[in-house]
């Protein structure tokens, strides 16, 4: 089990990052990609012992990343106000929009997808650690 999980975990992480980054081109998006990435870290903590899992992402880093995800979402909306438009607007405010079908198109969608993906992944890791080792 340990050899298999050590071989498989990098592929799961690459697949999770692929699903998050191609959120506007293929089915998937922020929630499913973040869940896949978080599940790979839980797999490392389950097949080895808990200290090896805590070395991948420590508790402080997971809490910081989770708060940073929500903050990034809110600040993107405020940037849209600063660029001249309504709150959380995409084309009317002037985000750079490339051609349809490229990877870096539709400005605000890519930024928001990455932020929410980071948030969901650290949510799953934080849930697992708190339920397993609560109250010491």
């Amino acid at each position, binding site marked *: 089990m340990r050899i298999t999980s050590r071989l498989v975990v990098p592929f799961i992480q690459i697949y999770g990052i692929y699903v998050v980054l191609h959120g506007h*081109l*293929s*089915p998937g*998006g922020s*929630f499913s990609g973040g869940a896949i990435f978080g599940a790979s870290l839980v797999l490392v903590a389950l097949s080895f012992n808990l200290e090896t899992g805590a070395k991948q992402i420590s508790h402080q880093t997971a809490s910081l990343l989770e708060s940073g995800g929500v903050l990034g979402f809110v600040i993107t909306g405020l940037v849209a106000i600063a660029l001249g438009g309504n709150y959380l607007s995409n084309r009317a405010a002037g985000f750079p929009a490339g051609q349809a079908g490229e990877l870096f198109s539709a400005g605000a969608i890519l930024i928001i997808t990455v932020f929410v993906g980071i948030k969901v992944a650290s949510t799953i890791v934080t*849930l697992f650690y*708190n*339920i397993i080792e*609560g*109250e010491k």
Partner: protein
Amino acid sequence: MEMLSGIIDNYYYMVAIILFVIGMYTMLTHANMIKKVIAMNIMDTSVFLMFVAIGYTHGAQAPIIKEGADTIYANPLPGALILTGIVVAVSVTAYALSLIVKIYRYYGTCDYDEICEIRSQE
């Protein structure tokens, strides 16, 4: 009878209702509390199935625009609303499981009937 042909044509909704009833039966009769949480998840899944099955037409494809003359796309609106519902279901399941962990540490059992007996004897 036209009612029987109506039910057989809309078999997706009938399967959703049967799943809901199975979840409700498990929640009412089994005493283990983790089985009740699993049954709540089954009921949530049945509601999602019924909502997403509303927006389908025969011969439709996934709503990802491809270059082509005219292809029928499925309705994207119910699927976009259910994404929020799935996240809410996950949150409620996580909170219910954390409450079960606290109850197990206090009473020492995960059985609902035994907990009622312990509480009625104090």
